[in-house]
């Protein structure tokens, strides 16, 4: 992978909430890149600014300053229909609370981003079959969300995030509402997709277990990137990487003076 071939470039992004005395700077100039096929994790304590960062990248929030380039396009300056064309097509989303539309069946939910972007659904049946096989939801396609367990719902949501073959999948605490077993299944499936299809995933989490599936992790604290961990591939096992993550987290909790 070559460094010039950046998929996502986040340049000096700042985000200020409130005005005057109430002004809070949630992001204080964050810069990093995401390469194609990367599985990037962003970790940090509550209030560190990680969700703000994800929301800014997801176009849910506009940065106060700075640029976000996806495939060389500055998506932070997009408006209205330009934005709509990017969402769900170029960017896939995975939410903590699944956000499935509960009066649509699993299949209808998965196909929704395609329908919205006016893509012929019949031609995409193949993609649907592959994804439902990968996420083990073939039997659930005609069920409604209320008939699914949390783990099943999140796997359906993951299939929905990937169906349009987006440039990047943004995942906000995808395992946050799941038990350990289901969280493990989901992460394995996502990781499998990442490795086989070379999909790019950007995941915000504070779960070290989930983070250990990533290839690189950025630690964020008080609105700045504070540390970076890279999984040594090949060679480093997931367990070993997990140990390293936990160590950084422990140091983070103890204050910056203990780190490095």
């Amino acid at each position, binding site marked *: 992978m070559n460094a010039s071939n950046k998929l996502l470039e986040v340049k000096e992004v700042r985000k200020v909430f409130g005005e005057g005395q109430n002004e809070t700077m949630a992001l204080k100039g964050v810069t990093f890149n995401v390469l194609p096929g990367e599985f990037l994790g962003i970790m940090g304590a509550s209030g560190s600014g990680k969700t703000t960062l994800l929301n800014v990248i997801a176009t849910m929030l506009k940065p106060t300053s700075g640029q976000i380039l996806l495939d060389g396009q500055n998506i932070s300056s997009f408006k209205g229909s330009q934005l709509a064309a990017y969402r769900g*097509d170029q960017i896939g989303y995975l939410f903590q609370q699944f*956000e499935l*539309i509960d*009066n*649509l069946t699993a299949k209808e939910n998965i196909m929704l981003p395609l*329908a919205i*972007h006016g893509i012929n*659904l019949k031609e995409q049946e193949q993609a649907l079959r592959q994804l439902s096989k990968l996420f083990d939801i073939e039997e659930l396609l005609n069920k*409604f969300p*209320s008939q699914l367990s949390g783990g099943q719902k999140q796997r359906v949501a993951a299939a929905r995030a990937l169906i349009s073959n987006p440039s990047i999948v943004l995942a906000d605490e995808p395992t946050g509402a799941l038990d350990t077993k289901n969280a493990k299944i989901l992460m394995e499936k996502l990781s499998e997709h990442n490795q086989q299809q070379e999909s790019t995933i950007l995941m915000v989490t504070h779960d070290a277990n989930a983070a250990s599936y990533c290839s690189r992790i950025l630690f964020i604290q008080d609105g700045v990137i504070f540390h970076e961990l890279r999984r040594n591939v090949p060679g480093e096992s997931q367990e070993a990487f997990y140990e390293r993550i936990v160590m950084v987290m422990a140091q983070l909790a103890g204050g910056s003076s203990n780190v490095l």
Partner: protein
Amino acid sequence: MFFDFVKRNSRKTRKENGVYFASLIVSIVAFYVILSLGEQDVMLYLKTIESDAVERLLLLIPVLYAVSLVFVFFLVYFANRYQLQQRSHEFGLYLMMGMKQSKLFLMIMGETIWNGIVAVCIGLPISLFLTELINLTTSRFVGMGIIGHAFRISWTGISLTICGFFLVQLLAMFILSFTMSRKEPIELLHEEKEKSQSTMTPKWGAVSLLSGAALLIGMILLCIAYGMAILYLRNFDYRVFALILLVGVCGTFILFRGLGSVIGVYVKRKGSSSTGLSMFTARQLQENVLHQWSSLAISTLLILMAMVCFAFGTSTALMNSAVANRTVDYTFHANNEDDIKPLIQSEELAPYVDSYYRMALHNFNPSEDEPLLNYHFAWTGLIETVSSQDDSEPKEILLNNLSMQDTPYFISLSSYNAMLEAAEKKPIQLAGNEVAMYTSDDTGASYDILKDILKKSPTVEIAENEYTLMPTLYSDQIVADRAITLMYSLIVPDALFEQYFDADETWLWNMTLKDEFIEEKGLMQAMLEVDQMLNSTGLQYESYLASMGRQLFYTVAGSYTTFYLGVMFLIIANTVLGLNFLMQQRSTRSRYQTLAMLGANVESICTSARKQIWLYFILAISVAFVSGIFGIWSLLTAMPATVFSFKNGIVIGLVVLLFIVMEIGYIRMIQRKSDVEIRKLKEID
């Protein structure tokens, strides 16, 4: 502090539920308008000439008022039930923060009262303005302006409006908030959760089969009701009526019960080929129908009732607006000329009188005094000519009518000519063996066919002679009293008339007023003046004005009350539909956010919601419309006095059009509200 809190909360409620609040105001206006009917100029005037009928109508108004209170109660109850459910999370928080349950109850009631006060403050001035407007319009329309118009406020109307309005609101809210405030905080905190698709659970096949059956049964029941309404309703048997009502109502409910899953089947079939948000739109509609089938059915029935009310009101207004030319101003009931002559020639009255004459008419019945005369009468020749016509409904009616009129009234030619002369019309010239046909029913179904047939010079038999009928059909008003009508009578030469009846037996005397006097004073004022003079004499008389007044009364009373009910039904139906939709939209707003995140732009989301509103309303309206066609059809055939003429058809069509425009207006209003709600979702832009 607590009061401020209540005020703030109620302002929020008003803002968020503008549609409901507007309906409250409209119902206040409607209440006042019906309650102040007795104070209207027209009614005050009618009271002086038709006091009994007006009193009876005014007795009916409390009943109408009570009925509409019941309807408004349901409106308030359902609208607030959704509203409180929406806010249950908020109430749960209040309880968690230490608010006492009694205080929560007080708070909800306080908000209701405050909102009620605001609604009354806005609604009452509007109602006063509107009643004034109606007052002026009707006065002008019927030419009553001369009688005098004064601005009146019906204080009983105002107090009853306020009392009823608050009673209904407080009762509904009492029931709702009482159950609400007794709940545990945890129940309240979690009540807001979106409803799951319980009706589409595992037994999918069985459910859709049942729903399909329900749909089918609903349709069959409705068809039975329609058929029965057309075939049997005209007999006015209350048992048949009750049965039709039962079958129809059940049919409507069952139809909507089954509709939801059928939409689901449609979505499933179309699912793979749909693009954009059409699948989402259909699923949303399906969910609405599944959860709100009973309110959809109720709204449908209300819209149907509104349609029938409008149709009835229109035809009542139409039927009586056919005012014939004025031919006679006064008709006295007096046994001989000496009773009225001194009066008419008196100094007081004489300057106003144009002419007076006897109206000699008599039933052609065998009299005991003259047993030797031949009283044979037959329509033979006429019936033969009618029978030779092509088969048609008017022909059947005419034959039927003729067969029942075997002893018609005879009108003496000189009387009729005197009337024609007074009205400045050409008198009739009868040849020796000629008689002329007269009918006062010039709007009936058989009028036109009879007119045509007379041109063929048919004959009738009187005693041993055969007489030819004149080619003209006469139908001028022969007396002032419009209640006196003659189905078919004959204008006969005086010689023939006097052969059977003594002209002095006549008890009807007509009088007409001078045209210049009427032109100077206006018809109403002139007649009122003469009325005053006549009243002091104790003579029995009937005036054109009183007769007009009676007609006017039926028109005003009939159309006013039915239109009132129609409007009430329509408001309630639309509000129920609109509120249901908006409430559902709000409770599922996270779906709209998700759509935006998946790349749907605001426009397409708004379009989807607008489509949902269209379809939702059209579902209810179209079922009501189909039922309405049959309802109005059977109404028009069941009412013996109503004739479905082409003109009536056009006017009814116009009313239907107006109704459609009103519905579209309402739909647009809900759509705008929905757009605002969607744009409010902050993640979208």
